[in-house]
Protein backbone atom coordinates (compact mmCIF):
# COMPACT_ATOMS: atom_id res chain seq x y z
CA UNK A 1 0.00 0.00 0.00
CA UNK A 2 2.91 2.35 0.60
CA UNK A 3 4.94 0.96 -2.27
CA UNK A 4 2.46 2.03 -4.90
CA UNK A 5 3.78 4.85 -7.05
CA UNK A 6 7.29 4.37 -5.72
CA UNK A 7 8.60 3.52 -9.16
CA UNK A 8 7.23 6.64 -10.81
CA UNK A 9 8.50 8.73 -7.92
CA UNK A 10 12.04 7.38 -8.05
CA UNK A 11 12.27 7.70 -11.82
CA UNK A 12 11.18 11.32 -11.73
CA UNK A 13 13.63 11.96 -8.87
CA UNK A 14 16.49 10.54 -10.88
CA UNK A 15 15.48 12.53 -13.95
CA UNK A 16 15.12 15.85 -12.16
CA UNK A 17 18.33 15.44 -10.16
CA UNK A 18 20.29 14.58 -13.29
CA UNK A 19 18.83 17.61 -15.00
CA UNK A 20 19.72 19.73 -11.98
CA UNK A 21 23.33 18.51 -11.97
CA UNK A 22 23.59 19.24 -15.66
CA UNK A 23 22.21 22.73 -15.21
CA UNK A 24 24.50 23.45 -12.26
CA UNK A 25 27.69 22.54 -14.03
CA UNK A 26 26.96 23.32 -17.66
CA UNK A 27 24.34 26.05 -17.72
CA UNK A 28 24.44 28.26 -14.64
CA UNK A 29 26.94 31.09 -15.07
CA UNK A 30 29.87 31.58 -12.73
CA UNK A 31 29.12 34.07 -10.02
CA UNK A 32 31.23 37.22 -10.08
CA UNK A 33 32.39 37.36 -6.46
CA UNK A 34 32.57 33.76 -5.30
CA UNK A 35 33.47 32.04 -8.55
CA UNK A 36 33.18 28.31 -8.81
CA UNK A 37 32.71 27.93 -5.05
CA UNK A 38 29.22 29.36 -5.35
CA UNK A 39 28.04 26.12 -6.98
CA UNK A 40 27.70 24.64 -3.49
CA UNK A 41 24.74 26.96 -3.10
CA UNK A 42 22.68 24.69 -5.36
CA UNK A 43 23.08 21.77 -2.99
CA UNK A 44 23.28 23.50 0.39
CA UNK A 45 20.22 25.75 0.20
CA UNK A 46 17.78 23.16 -1.25
CA UNK A 47 18.87 20.71 1.45
CA UNK A 48 18.19 23.38 4.07
CA UNK A 49 14.77 24.30 2.69
CA UNK A 50 13.62 20.70 2.26
CA UNK A 51 14.88 19.77 5.70
CA UNK A 52 13.03 22.66 7.34
CA UNK A 53 9.83 21.83 5.48
CA UNK A 54 10.25 18.21 6.50
CA UNK A 55 10.45 19.14 10.18
CA UNK A 56 7.33 21.26 9.89
CA UNK A 57 5.59 18.46 7.97
CA UNK A 58 6.53 16.07 10.76
CA UNK A 59 4.79 18.43 13.17
CA UNK A 60 1.67 18.56 11.02
CA UNK A 61 1.58 14.77 10.79
CA UNK A 62 1.89 14.67 14.57
CA UNK A 63 -1.15 16.94 14.85
CA UNK A 64 -3.02 14.44 12.68
CA UNK A 65 -1.90 11.65 14.96
CA UNK A 66 -3.18 13.38 18.05
CA UNK A 67 -6.46 14.12 16.32
CA UNK A 68 -7.14 10.70 14.85
CA UNK A 69 -5.04 8.47 17.14
CA UNK A 70 -4.11 6.47 14.06
CA UNK A 71 -0.59 5.02 14.55
CA UNK A 72 0.03 5.35 10.81
CA UNK A 73 0.30 9.12 11.28
CA UNK A 74 2.80 8.64 14.08
CA UNK A 75 4.86 6.43 11.78
CA UNK A 76 4.79 9.08 9.09
CA UNK A 77 5.76 11.77 11.58
CA UNK A 78 8.66 9.67 12.82
CA UNK A 79 9.95 9.00 9.31
CA UNK A 80 9.56 12.63 8.26
CA UNK A 81 11.59 13.81 11.24
CA UNK A 82 14.17 11.09 10.75
CA UNK A 83 14.65 12.01 7.08
CA UNK A 84 14.75 15.73 7.84
CA UNK A 85 17.42 15.12 10.44
CA UNK A 86 19.57 13.34 7.86
CA UNK A 87 19.01 16.12 5.33
CA UNK A 88 19.81 18.55 8.13
CA UNK A 89 23.15 16.86 8.72
CA UNK A 90 23.75 17.21 4.99
CA UNK A 91 22.93 20.91 5.27
CA UNK A 92 25.38 21.39 8.11
CA UNK A 93 28.20 19.52 6.36
CA UNK A 94 27.75 21.27 2.99
CA UNK A 95 27.40 24.61 4.76
CA UNK A 96 30.56 23.95 6.69
CA UNK A 97 32.42 23.09 3.48
CA UNK A 98 31.16 26.31 1.92
CA UNK A 99 32.27 28.28 4.98
CA UNK A 100 35.73 26.74 4.81
CA UNK A 101 36.03 27.67 1.18
CA UNK A 102 34.74 31.20 1.68
CA UNK A 103 36.14 32.25 5.02
CA UNK A 104 38.77 29.65 5.73
CA UNK A 105 37.00 28.37 8.86
CA UNK A 106 34.97 25.18 9.13
CA UNK A 107 32.35 27.01 11.20
CA UNK A 108 31.10 30.60 11.07
CA UNK A 109 28.64 32.23 13.43
CA UNK A 110 27.56 34.99 11.11
CA UNK A 111 25.63 32.74 8.76
CA UNK A 112 22.10 32.48 10.26
CA UNK A 113 21.06 29.43 8.23
CA UNK A 114 23.94 27.40 9.56
CA UNK A 115 23.53 28.56 13.16
CA UNK A 116 19.78 28.01 13.35
CA UNK A 117 20.26 24.60 11.76
CA UNK A 118 22.69 23.69 14.49
CA UNK A 119 20.11 24.58 17.15
CA UNK A 120 17.35 22.71 15.31
CA UNK A 121 19.63 19.71 14.94
CA UNK A 122 20.43 19.72 18.65
CA UNK A 123 16.71 19.82 19.42
CA UNK A 124 15.65 17.02 17.09
CA UNK A 125 18.57 14.88 18.17
CA UNK A 126 16.61 14.41 21.41
CA UNK A 127 13.62 12.97 19.53
CA UNK A 128 14.97 9.43 19.38
CA UNK A 129 16.20 9.36 23.00
CA UNK A 130 12.77 10.61 24.05
CA UNK A 131 11.02 7.78 22.21
CA UNK A 132 13.53 5.30 23.52
CA UNK A 133 12.86 6.36 27.11
CA UNK A 134 9.15 5.54 27.00
CA UNK A 135 8.19 1.87 27.01
CA UNK A 136 4.47 1.95 26.41
CA UNK A 137 3.93 2.29 22.63
CA UNK A 138 0.77 4.36 22.85
CA UNK A 139 2.25 6.84 25.30
CA UNK A 140 5.49 6.91 23.33
CA UNK A 141 3.61 7.90 20.18
CA UNK A 142 1.57 10.51 22.02
CA UNK A 143 4.55 12.15 23.74
CA UNK A 144 6.56 12.04 20.54
CA UNK A 145 3.72 13.81 18.75
CA UNK A 146 3.63 16.53 21.39
CA UNK A 147 7.35 16.98 20.94
CA UNK A 148 7.11 17.00 17.14
CA UNK A 149 4.45 19.71 17.20
CA UNK A 150 6.39 21.88 19.65
CA UNK A 151 9.60 21.45 17.71
CA UNK A 152 7.87 22.01 14.36
CA UNK A 153 6.56 25.34 15.60
CA UNK A 154 9.99 26.15 16.98
CA UNK A 155 11.81 25.74 13.67
CA UNK A 156 10.57 28.87 11.87
CA UNK A 157 10.61 30.98 15.04
CA UNK A 158 14.17 29.96 15.79
CA UNK A 159 15.20 30.80 12.25
CA UNK A 160 13.75 34.30 12.60
CA UNK A 161 15.33 34.86 16.01
CA UNK A 162 18.79 33.79 14.89
CA UNK A 163 18.53 35.84 11.74
CA UNK A 164 17.60 38.90 13.78
CA UNK A 165 20.56 38.38 16.05
CA UNK A 166 23.10 38.32 13.22
CA UNK A 167 21.76 41.17 11.12
CA UNK A 168 23.50 44.54 11.38
CA UNK A 169 26.56 42.83 12.81
CA UNK A 170 28.04 41.05 9.84
CA UNK A 171 26.86 41.22 6.29
CA UNK A 172 25.57 37.88 5.11
CA UNK A 173 27.86 36.40 2.59
CA UNK A 174 26.83 32.86 1.94
CA UNK A 175 23.12 32.93 1.66
CA UNK A 176 22.02 35.44 -0.95
CA UNK A 177 18.96 33.85 -2.49
CA UNK A 178 17.12 37.00 -3.43
CA UNK A 179 17.44 38.62 -6.83
CA UNK A 180 19.14 35.80 -8.65
CA UNK A 181 19.63 36.34 -12.36
CA UNK A 182 17.51 34.23 -14.71
CA UNK A 183 19.69 31.21 -15.48
CA UNK A 184 20.75 30.90 -11.82
CA UNK A 185 17.15 31.11 -10.64
CA UNK A 186 16.12 28.34 -13.03
CA UNK A 187 18.98 26.15 -11.90
CA UNK A 188 18.10 26.78 -8.28
CA UNK A 189 14.45 25.89 -8.78
CA UNK A 190 15.31 22.65 -10.56
CA UNK A 191 17.83 21.75 -7.85
CA UNK A 192 15.22 22.47 -5.18
CA UNK A 193 12.70 20.29 -7.01
CA UNK A 194 15.26 17.51 -7.26
CA UNK A 195 16.08 17.52 -3.56
CA UNK A 196 12.38 17.74 -2.66
CA UNK A 197 11.64 14.73 -4.87
CA UNK A 198 14.57 12.89 -3.32
CA UNK A 199 13.14 13.52 0.12
CA UNK A 200 9.69 12.34 -0.92
CA UNK A 201 11.06 9.20 -2.55
CA UNK A 202 13.18 8.28 0.44
CA UNK A 203 10.26 9.05 2.74
CA UNK A 204 7.98 6.71 0.82
CA UNK A 205 10.73 4.09 0.60
CA UNK A 206 11.30 4.15 4.35
CA UNK A 207 7.57 3.93 5.10
CA UNK A 208 7.21 0.96 2.78
CA UNK A 209 10.07 -0.85 4.49
CA UNK A 210 8.66 -0.16 7.95
CA UNK A 211 5.21 -1.23 6.90
CA UNK A 212 6.56 -4.44 5.45
CA UNK A 213 8.32 -5.22 8.73
CA UNK A 214 5.16 -4.46 10.70
CA UNK A 215 3.20 -6.83 8.47
CA UNK A 216 5.86 -9.50 8.90
CA UNK A 217 5.63 -9.09 12.62
CA UNK A 218 1.84 -9.46 12.54
CA UNK A 219 2.17 -12.55 10.32
CA UNK A 220 4.70 -14.11 12.62
CA UNK A 221 2.46 -13.48 15.59
CA UNK A 222 -0.45 -15.08 13.84
CA UNK A 223 1.51 -18.13 12.73
CA UNK A 224 3.47 -18.86 15.85
CA UNK A 225 1.17 -17.63 18.61
CA UNK A 226 2.49 -15.74 21.56
CA UNK A 227 6.00 -17.22 21.40
CA UNK A 228 6.54 -15.25 18.25
CA UNK A 229 7.36 -11.99 19.92
CA UNK A 230 10.97 -12.92 20.48
CA UNK A 231 12.68 -10.37 18.36
CA UNK A 232 14.81 -12.34 15.94
CA UNK A 233 16.48 -9.85 13.69
CA UNK A 234 16.59 -6.77 15.91
CA UNK A 235 19.77 -6.36 17.85
CA UNK A 236 18.47 -4.32 20.78
CA UNK A 237 15.43 -2.08 20.89
CA UNK A 238 14.67 0.55 18.35
CA UNK A 239 13.03 3.87 18.94
CA UNK A 240 10.90 3.54 15.82
CA UNK A 241 7.18 2.85 16.09
CA UNK A 242 6.52 -0.72 15.08
CA UNK A 243 2.79 -1.04 14.62
CA UNK A 244 0.49 0.54 12.14
CA UNK A 245 -3.00 -0.43 13.17
CA UNK A 246 -4.71 0.46 16.43
CA UNK A 247 -5.66 -3.19 16.95
CA UNK A 248 -2.08 -4.31 16.51
CA UNK A 249 -0.98 -1.61 18.89
CA UNK A 250 -3.34 -2.93 21.56
CA UNK A 251 -1.88 -6.40 21.11
CA UNK A 252 1.64 -5.07 21.37
CA UNK A 253 0.68 -3.18 24.47
CA UNK A 254 -0.80 -6.28 26.01
CA UNK A 255 2.23 -8.34 25.14
CA UNK A 256 4.48 -5.67 26.55
CA UNK A 257 2.69 -5.74 29.85
CA UNK A 258 3.05 -9.48 30.10
CA UNK A 259 6.73 -8.93 30.49
CA UNK A 260 7.89 -9.98 27.05
Amino acid at each position, binding site marked *: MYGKGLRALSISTAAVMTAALGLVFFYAPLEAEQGFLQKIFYVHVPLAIVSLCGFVAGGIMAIQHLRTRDPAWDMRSYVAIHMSLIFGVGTLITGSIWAK*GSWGHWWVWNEPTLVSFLIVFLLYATYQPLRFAIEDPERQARYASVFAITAGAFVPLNFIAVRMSTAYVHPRVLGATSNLPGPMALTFVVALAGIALLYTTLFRYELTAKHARAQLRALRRRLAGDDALVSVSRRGRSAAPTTLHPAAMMTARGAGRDGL
Partner: protein
Amino acid sequence: MAGVLAQLPALPLHEAGKYVAGAYVVLFALVLIYVAIMAIRLGRIERELGELLELSERTPVAAGVVGDADPARAEPPV
Protein backbone atom coordinates in the same frame (compact mmCIF):
# COMPACT_ATOMS: atom_id res chain seq x y z
CA MET B 1 28.08 44.74 1.27
CA ALA B 2 29.77 44.89 -2.11
CA GLY B 3 32.86 46.23 -0.39
CA VAL B 4 33.05 43.21 1.89
CA LEU B 5 32.44 40.81 -0.96
CA ALA B 6 35.11 42.45 -3.09
CA GLN B 7 37.69 41.45 -0.51
CA LEU B 8 36.72 37.81 -0.62
CA PRO B 9 38.94 35.88 -2.96
CA ALA B 10 37.18 34.18 -5.82
CA LEU B 11 39.02 30.92 -5.48
CA PRO B 12 40.61 29.73 -8.69
CA LEU B 13 39.06 26.63 -10.19
CA HIS B 14 41.54 24.09 -9.00
CA GLU B 15 41.11 25.16 -5.37
CA ALA B 16 37.35 25.77 -5.33
CA GLY B 17 36.83 22.57 -7.23
CA LYS B 18 37.84 20.50 -4.22
CA TYR B 19 35.21 22.13 -2.01
CA VAL B 20 32.43 21.95 -4.56
CA ALA B 21 33.24 18.34 -5.28
CA GLY B 22 33.27 17.66 -1.54
CA ALA B 23 29.81 19.13 -1.09
CA TYR B 24 28.30 17.11 -3.93
CA VAL B 25 30.09 13.98 -2.74
CA VAL B 26 28.43 14.47 0.66
CA LEU B 27 25.02 14.42 -0.99
CA PHE B 28 25.93 11.36 -3.03
CA ALA B 29 27.36 9.59 0.01
CA LEU B 30 24.19 10.21 2.06
CA VAL B 31 22.03 8.67 -0.64
CA LEU B 32 24.38 5.72 -1.13
CA ILE B 33 24.58 5.02 2.61
CA TYR B 34 20.80 4.96 2.65
CA VAL B 35 20.77 2.51 -0.27
CA ALA B 36 23.15 0.28 1.66
CA ILE B 37 20.97 0.38 4.78
CA MET B 38 17.91 -0.50 2.72
CA ALA B 39 19.78 -3.36 1.08
CA ILE B 40 20.60 -4.82 4.50
CA ARG B 41 16.97 -4.43 5.55
CA LEU B 42 15.77 -6.10 2.38
CA GLY B 43 18.00 -9.05 3.16
CA ARG B 44 16.53 -9.29 6.62
CA ILE B 45 12.97 -9.11 5.30
CA GLU B 46 13.70 -11.86 2.82
CA ARG B 47 15.18 -14.06 5.51
CA GLU B 48 12.25 -13.47 7.83
CA LEU B 49 9.77 -14.24 5.06
CA GLY B 50 11.59 -17.49 4.45
CA GLU B 51 11.35 -18.40 8.12
CA LEU B 52 7.66 -17.57 8.21
CA LEU B 53 7.03 -19.65 5.09
CA GLU B 54 8.77 -22.55 6.78
CA LEU B 55 6.77 -21.95 9.94
CA SER B 56 3.48 -21.90 8.05
CA GLU B 57 4.32 -25.23 6.43
CA ARG B 58 5.02 -26.84 9.79
CA THR B 59 2.04 -25.59 11.77
CA PRO B 60 -1.17 -26.32 9.89
CA VAL B 61 -3.22 -23.14 9.84
CA ALA B 62 -6.93 -23.97 9.42
CA ALA B 63 -8.98 -21.88 7.01
CA GLY B 64 -10.89 -19.08 8.70
CA VAL B 65 -8.62 -18.99 11.70
CA VAL B 66 -8.03 -15.26 11.21
CA GLY B 67 -7.55 -13.61 14.58
CA ASP B 68 -8.29 -16.82 16.39
CA ALA B 69 -5.17 -17.65 18.39
CA ASP B 70 -6.45 -20.07 20.98
CA PRO B 71 -3.40 -22.14 21.93
CA ALA B 72 -5.52 -24.95 23.30
CA ARG B 73 -6.79 -25.67 19.83
CA ALA B 74 -3.44 -25.61 18.02
CA GLU B 75 -2.52 -28.97 16.56
CA PRO B 76 0.80 -30.32 17.69
CA PRO B 77 3.33 -30.23 14.85
CA VAL B 78 3.24 -33.39 12.81
